[in-house]
């Protein structure tokens, strides 16, 4: 396992850290103003082009419906081989160019995801923050990743993580 930061030249580092017993966060700086980065997260035709990076693994995003406003809903459907899977939930809070908060309702104890867009000298610091309802729920997610539960999500994550660009 290579822990050295091995980003392509010029890329900003991606940091992942566990913040508490039921939260983890991913942070990354983008070389563009918040309005532009926010658009890439909230316009479904753009979002679906990067959330599942193009790869030769056979995972494809079948549909991507996003109604990005407070109270709006989303539904992403994936196909991998003969399996299909859906991720869905609703937006609890959306402040254009600043933040979006959504639920992850496909599981029983899904996390709430908060993404914030902070201007930093013309660039944007994106923080992707997941809060699980309990310590047990986060550990379930951890053991899911380690022990293959839920298997289909694990497969998807693995495909996405290991696929060649």
């Amino acid at each position, binding site marked *: *396992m*290579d*822990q*050295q*930061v091995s*980003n*392509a030249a010029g*890329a*900003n580092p*991606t*940091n*992942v*850290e*566990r913040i508490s*017993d039921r939260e*983890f966060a*991913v942070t*990354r700086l*983008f*070389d*563009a103003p918040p309005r*532009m*980065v926010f*658009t*890439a997260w909230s316009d479904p035709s*753009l979002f679906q*082009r*990067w*959330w599942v*990076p*193009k790869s030769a693994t056979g995972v494809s995003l079948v549909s991507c419906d996003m109604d990005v406003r407070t109270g709006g809903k989303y539904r992403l459907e994936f196909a991998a081989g003969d399996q299909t899977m859906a991720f869905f939930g609703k937006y609890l809070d959306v402040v254009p160019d600043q933040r979006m908060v959504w639920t992850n309702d496909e599981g029983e104890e899904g996390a709430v995801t908060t993404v914030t867009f902070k201007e930093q000298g013309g660039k944007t610091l994106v923080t*992707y923050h997941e809060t699980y309802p309990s*310590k047990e729920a986060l*550990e379930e*997610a*951890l*053991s899911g*990743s*380690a*022990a293959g539960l839920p298997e289909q999500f694990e497969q998807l*994550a*693995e495909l*996405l*993580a*290991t*696929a060649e*660009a």
Partner: protein
Amino acid sequence: MVQFNSTSLDASFAALSDATRRGVLAQLGRSDASITTLADQFHMTLTGMKKHVQVLERAGLVTTEKVGRVRTCRLGERGLGAEAEWIDAQRKLFERRFAALDAIIEEMKQEEANGPAGE
């Protein structure tokens, strides 16, 4: 089913929250090393590196053994445990996503630069 001990999970996450310590684990994954070697490699003082190694040791991620004047570090039984793998998988996933997002942002910049004024 893998059983997790919450206390050791917390200690592991604390240990892994630091970039140097993750680097040390990666290095020890390739080969055992003395604290002096690690300190040189990560451009740190011996004292600084000792502290990092102690945190990793307490989390069970690293074991050390002193032979003569040299303290050798190697990956502990837990190695890069489930939680480290999970963090690593998340980072890889988001690195891939964000590399693709960078490309889209570049496109958007181009379009703005070339697009009709006043849009």
